[in-house]
């Protein structure tokens, strides 16, 4: 018996090693398992903010201390049931809404400049994070964030609830020349955003794209044809700096969090 016929492991392993096809198939199956188990359920289970065409978001139910369920339209803004019917009327606390045109344009700049590489938008349920940044983030808050922006690094502070914390004027100064406002900052100067006008065509197209998303699209009742048609007017004369500030100011005040509610179960 030659050495090549000797089996040093199991018969099956030996067979796999001799056959390119079998090795290919076995490998393709083995590497698929983990992803399927961890990812596929996230499209079906509650508490994953998969809300398309389903006001309960896959049966999500956040309960208060008395065990009463909080209606989901308090978490995710639904113009049909809310007192405030349009994007203009929407008030902080009405629930998660899609971005307004200028905010969306700002978000594009935020991604373009790689802000997510140094700033997270995901507050964890710890005492210090609550004291520093505010209530922990919940899944619904990023349901319209196509290309999520949770980030992985805090070279700078978390921005999930930066909306309303500073004035527009502070942001303007800080974004242009951060060290004029915060001497220890290591952030680059983004003064050039002030000279760049907002890309209106791109923003309008982005709004259309957001309504076509296969998962969690922006409802066409919110991004209606009229609303999209009115976007160029809202963007008129605005700079990329205005847009980024509008985006930052929109972050984190959408849901009114009730004391004692566990939004994580």
């Amino acid at each position, binding site marked *: 018996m030659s050495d090549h016929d000797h089996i040093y492991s199991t018969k099956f392993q030996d067979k796999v090693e001799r056959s390119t096809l079998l090795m290919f198939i076995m490998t393709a199956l083995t590497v698929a398992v983990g992803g399927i188990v961890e990812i596929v359920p996230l499209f079906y289970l509650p508490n994953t903010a998969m809300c398309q065409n389903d006001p309960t978001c896959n049966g999500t139910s956040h309960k208060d201390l008395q065990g009463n369920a909080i209606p989901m339209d308090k978490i995710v803004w639904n113009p049909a049931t809310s007192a405030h019917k349009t994007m203009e009327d929407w008030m902080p606390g009405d629930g998660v809404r899609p971005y307004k045109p200028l905010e969306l344009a700002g978000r594009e700049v935020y991604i373009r400049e790689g802000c997510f590489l140094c700033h997270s938008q995901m507050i964890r349920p710890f005492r210090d994070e609550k004291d520093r940044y505010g209530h922990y983030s919940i899944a619904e808050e990023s349901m319209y964030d196509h290309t999520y922006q*949770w980030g992985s690094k805090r070279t700078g502070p978390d921005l999930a609830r930066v909306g309303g914390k500073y004035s527009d004027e502070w942001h303007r100064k800080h974004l242009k020349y951060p060290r004029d406002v915060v001497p220890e900052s290591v952030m680059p100067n983004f003064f050039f955003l002030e000279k760049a006008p907002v890309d209106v065509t791109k923003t309008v197209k982005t709004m259309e794209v957001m309504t076509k998303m296969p998962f969690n699209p922006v409802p066409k009742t919110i991004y209606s044809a009229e609303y999209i048609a009115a976007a160029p007017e809202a963007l008129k004369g605005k700079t990329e700096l205005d847009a980024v500030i509008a985006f930052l100011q929109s972050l984190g005040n959408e849901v009114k969090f009730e004391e004692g509610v566990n939004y994580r179960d």
Partner: protein
Amino acid sequence: MEATNATPVKYDMDVVRWFTIAAIIFGVVGTFIGVYVASELAWPFLNFDIPEITFGRLRPLHTNAVIFAFGGNVLFATGYYIVQRTGATKLWSNKLAWFHFWGWQAIIICAVITLPMGMSQGKEYAELPWWVDIMIAVVWLSYGLNYVMTNAIRKTSHMYVSNWFTMGMIVMITYLHVVNSLAIPVDWATSYSIYSGVQDAMIQWWWGHNAVGFYLTGGFLGIMYYFIPKQSGRPVFSYRLSVLHFWTLTFGYVWLGAHHLQYTALPDWTGSLGAAISLAMIIPSWGGAMNGMMTLSGAWDKLRTDYILRFLVTAMAFYAMSTFDGPVMAIKSVNALSHYTDWTVGHVHAGALGWMSMISFGALYHMVKKLWNTEMYSDRLVNVHFWIALIGATTYVVAMWVSGIMQGLMWRDYDEYGTLTYTFVESVSAMHPYYVMRAVGGAIFNLGTWIMLFNVVMTVRQASASRSANPVAARA
């Protein structure tokens, strides 16, 4: 390992030579950009108010350059080298391999142009615009087809273990790249992921961690299983351990991505599952590391004279260390501290500089000697490169470990009145000395890659000179 044919096989090694040279050049370029972005954090004036070179645009260029330009070219050079020599066969298609070579370099050029322009999809390590993603898919599949078919036409009975790992990488990266890159374009520069929020986060880190697990680990373990035995002249320590290593790693690594999202809005079960499997992964990882190290048993004395072997063995030490560091960081209570800090950056670079680069340098030196059929221009410079790389990597990693833990502790510190002790910006200024130290460590490491480039250029020139002087001997 290699079939002992009566007539020597004629391999397609030209394309391997080109991949090798490309790898060495991009090793220099990628780490240089790394030093620059690290310096921008230490001295922000280095952004020079030029949008194209601000940290946010240059950092993706660094990660893409080291992972896909340097790492990619190393993987393809070694992959094509190993598959031919262990299968005693030429490539299935030499033409397709050349398409792969030029296609991959074209992708790199696209990255160099688009990333500084700010064309980003906003996903870490998958920033490249959607049309470059399509180019990647096409070139990657051409590689996969060629690789699998070359295995299929091999003259040897069994597929060698290195080829299992490379095949695993090819399959997994195809899954990951396709699923994670699904996006709807707005225009040439911008596109948005079809997933949002929780689902997008999980898919991104399924991609992100497995780019590490299969591309930067699986593929490089293929290198380890071929070049350590070759360079040390000893057979792999344990065949059975390599079987165990391969299947457990292939099955297990896929689950780890969720540990990047602990305590986020991702459901707890997913993060906990990722953490549990992460801990279990110490077993295959250390099994593999031991397998590489113990291959030297009976030949440890070679480390005194063989500088290439020093790279390969040190890489295994770093591999063992990173695969211990990683699971520890995946433990939920540790992750609560380490997440969002520079500890993560330190961990990544322990793997990237210590494991991945070291094993690459060793394999590249080994291949240069074989491919050009010559000795190195200077063995002493190989040794100098080794020590410089080791000092640079250690300086970098220590700076980031220490500062990362400090950062995490500062953020959560409370004073006696129950208020936060430090403002955020105090943690930023406390980082400064460590950012300087990190930039210095990176610069030292980068210096080593320049030495390698010089040494290899001189070696190739020397080989060509001797070949033209003595054509008969060179052909032998």
